[in-house]
């Protein structure tokens, strides 16, 4: 394909040993500790180092856009698609998924417990003018939240709707302190369950909830044709590793507080797969 052989080290070196792969990812991915399980086998395999930089979704993509990282792992499908469309990414692969849950105070003033539709739950919260704490930061979670509001009959706004512009952990804290609802990824909620007075009121697909609450993670290499300084070969090797049975096993075995956090997706029977194709190329040459 178009960018082969333009990796950082060039082709004249015997191997990749000693090289560094820079990964930008979202804080929620890094915070779970999954990467610390995933990376050692890969690093051992090639004698390389993976530098994982946890940023906001937007910043992670922005860093990759500037060519300061070699590979990106995020969970914001619309932004990922845009990144690919602009020709900045190569070889986007579905990696894994978990799900979102709607959490709120045990007293549940809006009465949404057990609802099977997130949109209905949001509408009920809006109707009751019960406090709702929004990430407000264009993260994957925030994007999802806005999508749900858009589908629901209600308009977010007014005194009860608070934008915090913070990470998930902080938002859970604020919701807990203010007796409000929020949309959270399951992993962060589970790891913080002990410290906040919040319970799951609407489940995600993992526990039988609606598919709208699914949270898929993707991984993309930065296009070496745009930034010739990126370590493309190693990025591709990394993506290959992540989507291999070995890494997918690591993902399905990874638990926090006795709960599985992520569900592998790369080895499904119908793998989702996007490839960047330079403009003007015929689609048959894409692979």
């Amino acid at each position: 394909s178009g960018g082969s052989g333009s990796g950082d080290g060039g082709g004249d070196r015997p191997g990749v040993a000693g090289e560094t792969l820079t990964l930008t990812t979202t804080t929620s991915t890094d915070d779970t500790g999954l990467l610390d399980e995933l990376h050692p086998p890969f690093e051992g395999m090639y004698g390389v180092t993976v530098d994982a930089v946890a940023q906001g979704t937007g910043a992670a993509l922005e860093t990759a856009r500037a060519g300061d990282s070699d590979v990106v792992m995020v969970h914001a499908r619309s932004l990922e698609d845009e990144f690919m469309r602009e020709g900045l990414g190569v070889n986007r692969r579905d990696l894994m998924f978990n799900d979102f849950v709607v959490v709120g105070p045990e007293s549940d003033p809006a009465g949404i417990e057990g609802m099977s539709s997130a949109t209905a739950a949001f509408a009920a919260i809006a109707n009751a003018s019960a406090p709702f704490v929004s990430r407000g930061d264009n993260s994957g979670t925030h994007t999802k939240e806005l999508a749900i509001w858009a589908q629901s009959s209600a308009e977010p706004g007014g005194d009860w709707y608070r934008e915090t512009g913070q990470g998930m952990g902080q938002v859970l804290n604020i919701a807990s302190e203010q007796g409000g609802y929020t949309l959270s990824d399951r992993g962060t909620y589970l790891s913080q369950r002990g410290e906040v007075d919040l319970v799951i009121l609407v489940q995600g697909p993992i526990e039988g909830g609606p598919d709208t609450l699914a949270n898929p993670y993707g991984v993309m290499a930065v296009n070496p044709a745009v930034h010739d300084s990126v370590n493309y070969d190693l990025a591709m090797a990394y993506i290959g590793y992540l989507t291999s049975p070995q890494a997918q096993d690591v993902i399905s075995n990874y638990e926090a507080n006795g709960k599985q956090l992520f569900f592998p997706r790369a080895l499904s029977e119908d793998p989702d797969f996007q490839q960047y194709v330079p403009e003007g190329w015929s689609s048959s040459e894409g692979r």
Partner: protein
Amino acid sequence: MMGPGLDTVLLGPLLVEFPFEATYVRSIISVSLYVSLIAVALSTLVSVPVAVLVGLSDFRGKGVLTSVINTGMGFPSVVVGLAVLFLVSNQGPLGALDLVFTKEAMVLSQFVLATPPVTAISLAAVTGVDRGVRDAAHALGGTRVDTALVVVKQARYGVATAVLAGFGRAISEVGSVLIVGGNIAGADGVSKTRTLTTAIQLEARQGRYGTAMVLGAVLVGLVLVVNAVVVRLGGRGVGG
């Protein structure tokens, strides 16, 4: 986060079309100034007397105390934020006052952060005041307060720098205000506890570096104005 402005295309790192409504920016500025100015005013009220007291007396352990005050200049803001959060959170000792995620809690944490630098720098300034002038203020019939006032006046340039350093620390700080304030803005774009720094951080996390820089420029401009006013007032004070 503000409806229409949001999707404005960024033209480049600094060549952005300003994507906010004026109310949003105005309300953020006013929260920033409110919190920082009140916190620094309180810090000054505490720090300058403490600096004078410590600076003018000799006692065992003065060196240790000075080290402790200086150490305060290195308090990590996140830790201060957490400590204040424990204090004001529902279960904390001040829980009943309902201060979590309010401007008042932010004032408290900024106060804790600004006080050490204001004290330490004032202390250095006060220590530099000529001993003879102190003696004169005392011997000519001054009370301890009179002497302290003379000393502060002699050290006014250093004390003003101390206050400005405290103000700089308070208004530029993001770690603690984020934690205790929560960076909350209403859906209508009116800031409740969002400051310029937390707004900048929010933009930066989203990779909207251009707008972050614009807000940063606003912040720096604001600080410049406050500094110019203080230097102006200080300059006038020299004659008196």
